[in-house]
């Protein structure tokens, strides 16, 4: 990465941190307490932002997996890996904050209804995707099998979305929202979108840097290294 790349990365992270600070300040000082639910409704901002950005990151992984199967370019494999890490992280945040919210609202931590169950399955699928990448595979097969796994895992994403949209009674709902709440929600969505974009791109760059370092250290390709395809060289 050249000097301009590093400067752009720093500016991006500075913007992301500023957005997160603004979002947090809005939750503390700007959003009024809900007249019915009280202060617990403030939890919705981080929960919803994490949940929506989980689905966006799943779409990034899905697109990277499709692109890998099409082009057999290891850069798509690295992007899929970076995206899946962020999916697992964000989905975990959404699940835990949802459980805290449920405990205060329903009086229990968990309920086996469709939105929650499909969300848990989503987390398990992408955690399995990351574990699958660490298993020993025949040479050149890891990326191919991971891409196929990722495409199958994405089938759960519409189920999560549709179960939340079509069965609102089985999920914690917010009802009528004040303007301040909507504005704060938009800032949170943007802040977590920037954060997840930064995490994916930094993880991707790190993988590219370390793989380039390994390639220069070991000039001879190892048995597990896949030879570069003509498209990748081009």
């Amino acid at each position, binding site marked *: 990465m050249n000097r301009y790349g590093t400067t752009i990365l720093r500016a991006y992270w500075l913007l992301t941190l500023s957005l997160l600070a603004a979002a947090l300040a809005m939750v503390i000082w700007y959003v009024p307490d809900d007249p019915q639910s009280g202060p617990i409704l403030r939890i919705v901002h981080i929960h919803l932002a994490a949940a929506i950005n989980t689905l966006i990151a799943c779409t990034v992984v899905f697109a990277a997996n499709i692109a890998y199967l099409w082009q057999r370019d290891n850069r798509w494999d690295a992007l899929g890996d970076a995206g899946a890490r962020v999916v697992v992280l964000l989905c975990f945040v959404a699940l835990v*904050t949802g459980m805290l919210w449920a405990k205060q609202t329903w009086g229990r931590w968990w309920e086996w209804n469709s939105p929650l169950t499909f969300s848990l399955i989503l987390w398990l699928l992408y955690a399995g995707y990351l574990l699958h990448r660490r298993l020993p595979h025949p040479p050149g097969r890891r990326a191919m099998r991971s891409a196929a796994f990722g495409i199958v895992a994405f089938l759960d994403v519409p189920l999560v979305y549709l179960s939340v949209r079509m069965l609102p009674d089985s999920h914690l709902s917010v009802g009528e929202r004040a303007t301040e709440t909507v504005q704060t929600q938009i800032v949170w969505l943007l802040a977590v979108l920037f954060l997840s974009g930064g995490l994916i791109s930094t993880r991707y760059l790190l993988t590219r840097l370390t793989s380039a370092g390994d390639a220069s250290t070991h000039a001879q390709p190892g048995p597990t290294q896949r030879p570069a395809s003509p498209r990748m060289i081009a």
Partner: protein
Amino acid sequence: MNDTAVVIIAYTFGLTLLLGYAASLLIRHAQALRHQSPPPPIAHQNNPDS
């Protein structure tokens, strides 16, 4: 438990996890960049006057 305490726990948990991961990635990225960059030239190398 008090609602406000639960909200504080939720935000502390979420932000610590996300920003902690971001910090670890940025540190490792900076280390990888430093490792990759060529060593600085040594002054007076092969200079018989030094």
